[in-house]
């Protein structure tokens, strides 16, 4: 069989070429070279779908370590390998489908902005980095791409760099995620020293037949763990508890620490509590960028990191429990803030945080019961489409009205029916109403968490939080929808009359709505289910549980409970905001205080500011003093010394041949003297060296 996967590098290469062409020559093209970006990303889409399809047929790992990037003199080498795994293939689909639609949508949405070549070039780099990230085979390569993703998000969030809010939002996103990145580095370093550094003599070959481990580097597939290869028959990858056990066997505390540090990195990128503060502010970027960041690229990278770590290295039970807890808590925590936001994009941003919380929780739960993180990845997959849909619909509204304030909107359904109905589909999917995709994926991960809670009662609290989160999700997203679309007319008249955008923007909306409808049923295809290790097709919803599990009444019951909660949320939203109603808390209401806390985002920004001013600034001052007087002083002293030496030295260079000749003779005499007298002396002094 021809190994198609050798060509997997074509996926990131397509957009990389787009980046180079647009980055260097973008100004030559009309409209900032948008069509180049569409072609480049279109090519990446074709390749991505092709490789994902191939992977779904074979469902084995393709691992290529032949490309050595850099070899050190002592034989250590850094490999830029390719790993086409089921999870990576799934991500290729997500990244490129959403990426393509977003780039297409940008053609009209961004048409009137300045600096378009920069925009498209950065989008291309963003997609390149993300495609590279999902194909990376070791942590070094992964971090390289991870950093590129971070850089691009900084550049794109700050795209309107003349706007101070955008510039500071970009900085905030970069700095907050950086905290996570540092944690990730340390975590990876622990893995590297405690796992990659140990050459386990019993494991010199990859667990996958026909693949060779390089002794150096830190290849995931060769990190020295045994785990069962993908079992094509049952469509389940059982990460047999072996992987966790083997990690635990090394040094449980160290491995727990490493797992938590990795979680820190993921929390930064995926905006999990307590590193979530950058996400709402990041709404200052163009809506298309928000759609890409929230659906397919940046925040997905964090969940992907957790998923691959859980598969290839494994979390210790303690670490897994913390992962579950952080995710479960964030899902509720973010939802509460989403209830009160006025900005249409911020509501969706909080929903992202909350949904990512579900995914993180599911990875933790999957690790606890030692199965693959398919449930989380499936939610990532369905979420990508309906979240991109929600953002792009919101973009359509913003494009038409020029405002982002929900309370200024209203009655848009009649003027923008396509936008309205597609957004409704997105909202239904987000709330988890069948038959839309969100129901299946959310149900799957809830039932998985329930299973985990059977074994680890501590998880029950966070499971309940997640259930309350389901109610809130429906509540805030339908608050948004009713405020924007219901009623007869806008509450504030805008400068522009509301209108539908052209097909360039409508086509992605309709496509995404269609994908949102079908995505939930995709695991019925046996090929697709290969891409989701750990997910089983149950009779009702997707039951993600351990081995030997099939349909059970618990599962049915859970599905009904979450559906009931979602419908409750929907109906409450209708009662409060439906039909053009606007519900606001009265000033004397006892809930007003809570409302303020939520609007101020639990005062996290203020707290972090205080921390920075009090703690960090003090330390910084001390370092500043040291830097200014000790380091700079030393440097300046040397600078003066060398300057004087240089100045004096110029006098030796007379320009006269005779003086040069005498220097040559001088050198000769010194050499001969050294060889004749000093050398024998030194030799006898050292006894032959």
């Amino acid at each position, binding site marked *: 069989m021809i190994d198609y996967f050798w060509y997997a590098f074509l996926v990131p290469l397509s957009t990389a070429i787009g980046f180079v062409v647009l980055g260097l020559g973008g100004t030559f093209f009309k409209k900032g070279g948008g069509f180049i970006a569409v072609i480049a990303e279109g090519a990446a889409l074709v390749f991505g779908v092709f490789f994902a399809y191939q992977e779904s047929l074979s469902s084995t790992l393709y691992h290529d370590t032949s490309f050595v990037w850099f070899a050190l003199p002592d034989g250590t080498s850094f490999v830029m390998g390719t790993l086409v795994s089921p999870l990576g293939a799934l991500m290729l689909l997500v990244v490129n489908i959403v990426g393509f639609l977003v780039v297409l949508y940008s053609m009209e949405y961004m048409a009137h902005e300045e600096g378009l070549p*920069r925009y498209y070039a950065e989008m291309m780099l963003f997609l390149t980095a993300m495609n590279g990230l999902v194909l990376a085979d070791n942590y070094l390569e992964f971090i390289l791409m991870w950093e590129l993703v971070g850089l691009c998000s900084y550049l794109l969030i700050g795209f309107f760099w003349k706007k101070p809010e955008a510039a500071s939002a970009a900085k905030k996103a970069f700095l907050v995620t950086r905290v996570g990145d540092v944690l990730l580095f340390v975590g990876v370093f622990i893995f590297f020293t405690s796992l990659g550094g140990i050459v386990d003599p019993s494991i010199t070959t990859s667990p996958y037949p026909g693949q060779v481990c390089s002794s150096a580097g830190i290849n995931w597939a060769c990190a020295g763990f045994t785990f069962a290869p993908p079992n094509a028959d049952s469509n389940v990858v059982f990460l047999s508890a072996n992987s966790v056990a083997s990690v635990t066997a090394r040094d449980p505390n160290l491995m727990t620490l490493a797992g938590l540090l990795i979680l820190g990195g993921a929390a930064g990128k995926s905006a999990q509590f307590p590193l979530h503060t950058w996400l709402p502010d990041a709404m200052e970027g163009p809506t298309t960028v928000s759609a890409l960041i929230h659906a397919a690229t940046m925040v997905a990278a964090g969940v992907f990191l957790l998923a691959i770590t859980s598969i290839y290295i494994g979390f210790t039970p303690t670490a897994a429990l913390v992962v579950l807890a952080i995710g479960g808590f964030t899902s509720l925590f973010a939802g509460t803030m989403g209830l009160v936001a006025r900005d249409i994009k911020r509501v969706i941003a909080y929903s992202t945080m909350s949904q990512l919380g579900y995914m993180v929780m599911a990875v933790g739960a999957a690790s606890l019961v030692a199965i693959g993180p398919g449930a989380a990845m499936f939610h990532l997959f369905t979420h990508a489409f309906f979240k991109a849909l929600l953002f792009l619909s919101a973009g359509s509204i913003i494009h038409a009205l020029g405002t982002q304030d929900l309370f200024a909107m209203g009655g848009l359904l009649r003027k923008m029916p396509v936008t309205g109905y597609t957004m409704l589909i997105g909202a239904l999917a987000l709330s988890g109403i069948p038959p839309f995709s969100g129901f299946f994926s959310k149900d799957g991960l809830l039932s998985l968490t329930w299973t985990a809670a059977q074994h680890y009662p501590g998880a029950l609290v966070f499971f309940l939080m997640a259930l309350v989160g389901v109610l809130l999700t429906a509540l805030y997203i339908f608050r948004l929808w009713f405020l924007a679309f219901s009623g007869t007319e806008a509450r504030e008249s805008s400068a522009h009359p509301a209108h539908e955008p052209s097909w360039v923007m409508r086509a992605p909306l309709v496509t995404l709505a269609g994908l949102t409808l079908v995505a939930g049923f995709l695991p019925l295809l046996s090929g697709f289910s290969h891409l989701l290790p750990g997910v089983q097709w149950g009779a009702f919803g997707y039951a993600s549980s351990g081995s030997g599990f099939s349909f059970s009444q618990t599962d049915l019951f859970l599905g009904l409970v979450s559906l009931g909660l979602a419908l409750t949320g929907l109906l409450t939203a209708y009662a409060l905001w439906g039909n053009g109603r606007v519900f606001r808390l009265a000033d004397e209401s006892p809930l007003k205080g809570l409302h303020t806390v939520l609007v101020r985002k639990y005062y996290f920004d203020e707290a972090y500011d205080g921390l920075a001013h009090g703690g960090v600034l003090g330390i910084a001052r001390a370092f500043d003093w040291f830097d200014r007087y000790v380091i700079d002083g030393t440097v300046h002293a040397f600078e003066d010394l*060398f300057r004087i030496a240089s100045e004096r030295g110029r006098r030796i260079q007379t320009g006269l041949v005779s003086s040069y000749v005498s220097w040559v003779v001088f050198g000769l005499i010194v050499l001969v003297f050294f060889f004749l007298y000093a050398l024998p002396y030194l030799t006898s002094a050292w006894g032959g060296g």
Partner: protein
Amino acid sequence: MSFDIPSIAQYTPEATVFIGVILVFMLDVAGIRSRAIIGGATSIFLLLAFLQVLADLGSWPLQGLSTLPAGLLGTQNGPVIFTNFGLIFQGIFLLSALLVALASVSEADGEEVPTFYALLSLAALGMLFVAISADLIFLLLSVEITGIATYVMVGYTRKDRRAVEAAMKFYIIGALSTAISFFGASLLYGAYGTTSLTAFRALPANSSLALVGFGMVAVGLGFKATLVPFHMWAVDVYDGAPASVSAFLAAGSKKMGLFGIFIVFVAAVRIFASAQGFALYLALGALAVITMTVGNVMALEQTTMKRMLAYSSIAQAGYMLLGIAIDTPAALAGATLQITADVLMKAGAFIVVGAAVGLGVGPLITDWRGVGHSRPGIGASFAIMLLSLAGMPLTLGFVGKFYLFFAAVEAGGYFTLLAIAGLLNSALSVFYYARILRYMYMPESTGSATVGAHPLSHSSLGVGNAPAAPAWGSVRDEIRGTGSARWATVVGIALLLLVLGIYPTPIIGAMNSAAQQFLTLGL
């Protein structure tokens, strides 16, 4: 001993270059003196020779075209031996000549044009022989072929008084050094009764005569390699000579001297390994450290670009000498990498300086103010070369230094001190390279390290509405000012520095194995 009819197929690169020389002479006789034709022809022949060397090295995709007879590699044949290490250096030498030939196509036409190209090819021919020599006399004679050609090249324009003066200085010091090194060779012959470098390696260290001999040979070769204190001519000559000739001297002829020191001292160190080897390492290490320190310190206060580059070139020679002063395969591979990088950086930098006249930039460092913005292509390329010279990551200059210093640390003990000295020197050198970058890119009014505009405006990709956007019109202007061949050479060198700096694995692999063979085999 049987006498086979010697195969000459292995001399294809040398023959190619030689045919190029004859062709240039014939064109001269025919009255054709256009740079485009003569320079183009020379470049083609040098390129063919270069590709042939790559083929002989077995580089993809030319490996099938090798003309080396089987079994020839590593066996001495009279005064000649073919090794992968020597072949790599043949490639390096040809590359330096090729770059200079290409870039000088853009210079003014004149009656001396054929002379220049003929001399350039002849000098390259001498260097090719140096790279395959296995005998001290053959080595010194080959060095002299190149030497005489370069003496004339420095003064070839004849009308420029400073160039003629430089040529005279070069010649006098060169003659003196050559005389000393031949004297040394005769002492070695007196001591051992042979001049074969391979034979030296197997001989015992029996006389101080040999030590003096090696010392004197080192003077002659150290002159070419601009080791301190035999470096003084270099500053005046690099400054006075036409920039393209300086490029060739710094990129090509200096590397020949270093290669000569490598092969002579590999033998010397082996001779004295048992008894005085370590002290010899000490001497070479001291020479290297003194050379890099003097070069870097003197470069600090220079005001003209060419003299600054001349001193930086002297400093670079110090780093490269570490290759033999550490004498491990990794160090030698690192030195070879550094030499390759330096060929690109120094040839490129001098070519840029030569092109600056056409761009209206004066000889002083301060004349480069704002060039980064007004001449985006040349400015960016020059910036990459300077960053590479300073040893910044993602450039080839970093890879070479990293390898060298890593090898020094790996060798341990006293050699670690060499790595520290090298690192400190690198830090020192950043000072004067960064100064040029500051002139080129910082706003003129402040000239300090504060950036006036919004930070984000500089982090953008330099396209669209960012203030540093390259105006394509000014690129067209600068191509007109420098000439397209020269512009393309400069930009090509910069790209090569970046590409090889990001992905050096192919050349590292070749150099590692070649250095390994070179140290274990005969030569």
